[in-house]
């Protein structure tokens, strides 16, 4: 697993590892900017409509949101354990840690889905059933942003879950290709976790003390 076949363009395995690491970080830099625009948008909304945004954010489900953050942080620890296991040449344990990571990811998506269901019942979904008279125009602005940003995050997570499951399957069958790396998959997974770390206070913690 760690003795990967060397690509013809590389002099040493270390150089090959660093090239793929830099490639992933370059991709993640574009992701920082993609999801960062939504964070920048939120900061502008918050400065323009401080009270209304906070009022709208209080309709989010803080218990589910906090639980989900815990789930995602734990999944990252499992992913780090999978990388550790690969380094130790412990294939079986790497498979189990990858499965644990994917399962926690699926749990996150399930909780998120239940949250969307509750929000639908409270008429908080713009374009579907938003109660304009009850939550107002800035409320609609906030929830449009909320569904866009959590939706994009969920799409990233689902892609991560699929990749982690494929990696676990290939590893279990001892057919893990040289072109794949659990460590690089881990970088992507941890990045999706970091995005949520910033979304969590912006979405769920605004205006709780008022």
């Amino acid at each position, binding site marked *: 697993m760690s003795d990967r076949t060397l690509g013809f363009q590389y002099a040493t395995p270390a150089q090959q590892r*660093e090239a793929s*690491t*830099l490639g992933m*970080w*370059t991709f*993640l*830099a*574009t*992701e*920082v*900017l993609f999801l*960062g*625009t939504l*964070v*920048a948008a939120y*900061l*502008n*909304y*918050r*400065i*323009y*409509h401080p009270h*209304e945004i906070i009022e709208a954010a209080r309709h989010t489900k*803080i218990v589910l949101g*906090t639980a989900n*953050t*815990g789930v995602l*942080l*734990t999944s*990252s*620890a499992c*992913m*780090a*354990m999978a*990388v*550790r296991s690969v380094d130790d040449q412990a294939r079986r344990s790497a498979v189990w840690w990858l499965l644990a990571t994917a399962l926690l990811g699926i749990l996150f998506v399930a909780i998120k889905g239940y949250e969307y269901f509750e929000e639908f019942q409270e008429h908080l979904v713009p374009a579907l059933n938003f109660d304009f008279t009850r939550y107002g*125009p*800035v409320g609609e*602005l906030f929830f449009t942003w909320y569904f866009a940003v959590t939706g994009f995050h969920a799409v990233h997570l689902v892609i991560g879950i699929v990749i982690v499951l494929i990696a676990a399957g290939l590893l279990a069958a001892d057919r893990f290709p040289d072109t794949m790396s659990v*460590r690089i998959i*881990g*970088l992507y997974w*941890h*990045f999706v*976790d*970091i995005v949520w*770390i*910033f979304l*969590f*206070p912006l979405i*769920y*913690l*605004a205006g*709780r*003390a*008022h």
Partner: protein
Amino acid sequence: MSRATIWRCWLALVLLLTATTASAFVPLGAFNLVVSLVIAITKALIVLLFFMELSASRALVRAFAAAGFFWLLIMIVLTGADYWHRTDVRAPIDMTTSY
């Protein structure tokens, strides 16, 4: 990274999560946002330095990792320089409320 380090990081992350949620219910005014963002940055640094192994990476890898966040900072500051200082010409998002 050792198994012990991984789970110590996990414990720190969960404790910080508890702290940030608890702090949200303490009335601090605008400082609620500041406290929660400082905790978020701390959590992100733990993930970046340990889980994403930047603490053990070469400077080149760290520079690649920092570049994305640095550019994000430029984007937020330049957007803010426009939106946050408009007085006479209002931004389109002002149309969403009537003053």
